């Protein structure tokens, strides 16, 4: 595979997740290597978002093991020790949400500084410097003191990316980052994500339906179907040579 040097950043082992009687994840195994961009796609309800949310324990996996950058957690129970580990894991895995979820009572720069200052005890001065740098990186240096509610959806999502980056994560998890955006705003967010991959060599897991982005940026794609990974491989294989009728049907529908 291209774009990584073999070091495993995310390791998912036999993860199951049920909501009541509904089994959303039915045994997921995967490894994501450093610098790799993995695009996860599939129908809604196929479990792709749930997997992402299980990786940073916003959902508790019913069973299975998740390891991010050496922090290893077993699903199914929550002890005090486990909760501390979950926080350690979350610091290493930046999350970008479909609905941005910026903090509306803070300015843009305060949103970006919040994680480092509150969670990592970074001195405010240093956090601000880093925050401004990150805002510049996502093209919003001039919006630092703006309230996020005055920004467009695309701008808000770019701030959300900067906020996640401020924790200096080992992996970035994108949960349908462009699905809530107006069509004309999608491009600017994808451009930022692309620059993360190409300039920063950030390890990324992206749940998205943006197949253009996947073709261009992904090292690997995974097709989720009814709670399992039905097919995975480099974009070229899935787009052009898939033998799987389910993958074929889905890609024909979205392309």
């Amino acid at each position: 595979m291209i774009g990584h040097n073999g070091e495993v950043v995310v390791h998912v082992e036999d993860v199951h997740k049920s909501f009541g009687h509904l089994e959303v994840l039915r045994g997921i195994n995967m490894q994501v290597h450093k610098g790799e961009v993995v695009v996860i796609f599939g129908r809604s309800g196929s479990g792709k978002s749930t997997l992402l949310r299980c990786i940073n324990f916003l959902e508790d996996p019913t069973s299975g093991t998740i390891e991010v950058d050496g922090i290893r957690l077993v699903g199914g129970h929550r002890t005090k020790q486990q909760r501390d580990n979950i926080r350690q894991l979350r610091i290493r895995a930046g999350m970008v949400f479909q609905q941005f979820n910026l903090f509306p009572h803070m300015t843009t720069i305060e949103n970006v500084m919040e994680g480092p200052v509150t969670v990592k005890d970074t001195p405010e001065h240093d956090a601000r410097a880093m925050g401004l740098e990150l805002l510049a990186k996502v093209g919003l240096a001039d919006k630092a003191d703006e309230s996020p509610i005055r920004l467009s959806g695309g701008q808000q999502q770019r701030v959300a990316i900067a906020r996640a980056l401020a924790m200096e994560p080992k992996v970035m998890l994108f949960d349908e980052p462009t699905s809530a955006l107006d069509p004309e705003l999608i491009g600017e967010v994808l451009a930022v994500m692309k620059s993360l991959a190409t300039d920063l060599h950030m390890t990324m897991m992206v749940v998205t339906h943006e197949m253009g982005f996947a073709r261009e940026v992904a090292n690997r794609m995974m097709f989720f179907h009814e709670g399992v990974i039905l097919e995975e491989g480099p974009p070229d294989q899935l787009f052009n040579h898939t033998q799987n009728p389910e993958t074929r049907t889905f890609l024909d529908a979205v392309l």
Partner: protein
Amino acid sequence: MKTESPGVGTGPPPGRSGRDAGLRERLEQFSLRIPYRAKLALVWLVIFVIFAVIFGAAQFDTQWMRDNWVFVVKGIWVTIFISVISIFGAVVLATLGSLGRLSKNPIAYGVSGFYTSFFRGTPLIVQLFLIYLALPQVGTNLALQFRDPLRDWIQTVTLLSPVMAGIVGLSLNYGAYMTEIFRAGIQSVSHGQSEAAEALGMTYKQKMRRIVLPQALRVIIPPTGNEFIAMMKDTALLSFLGAAIFWSDPFRRATLLGRADFKNMEALLVAAACYWALTAIFTFFQKKLETRVGKGYVRGGGGAPAAKLSSDLGVPLGHGGTLMNVPGGGPGGGAGMIELPVENEETDR
């Protein structure tokens, strides 16, 4: 011409003469020229005059009032003192209570459930008597079971002065009601905010202090102001605990004085005026506070939820109060701003 109504649509009722119709028309014309507020003031004035006449006929002793009103009015300080301390106590209890009500921990949930159920389910006056009269009895008997430093301590903390008992009772009672206000306020902050905080690695405490509670305050503050105003009136119940004169509220002062001189009407009217003035003043400030904190942002911060919230409330996007006037605004486009609905039925005139 005079038999025909010059008005539009409705003619004079049958049986009325043309002259009456003309008079009515002129009155209506005249009435239209008077501003609504002036009419309102006139209504109030008439009500006061009617009462003045009644009291005059009932040999209302204005001289006695002039001589004694200061004594009653001085009780206002007691009212304010007790209310201010009690509202702080109630806010602390409501914060804890609401976090308990929202907790998955069975102890926290159970304790807060018992607390709110009991203090909302029993009359305030009963609670006050329990704390003032029944608690010392429990304390005295309980103290016998223990040895001295503890025995002494139990007796001291269970024997409360009327004012202390009042503060404890009001705090507990209002804290229970305000628990629901706080709970609703916390729940009004979208789940996405909580998840974003957790995803950054925040602890529960950090999440609450930095992200959830600051946003919940917008919803919590206006009704808390209402509770404060209601509490000021309920301080009058402390009269029944029989505080010393210095620590007596206007109502107790009025009853003492009124009974002694058989001037109950005069004395109680002064007391009523005290509470009325207090609530009027604080309602005025509360309205100001309400419009200030009520101007808000869209919770959740996303384009889609903004649009959803907007359509739910029937408020057009981009109607952002003062926020809209900040110069140098970027494209507010997808985000949109609305004013949060202020949860207070008295807001509309």
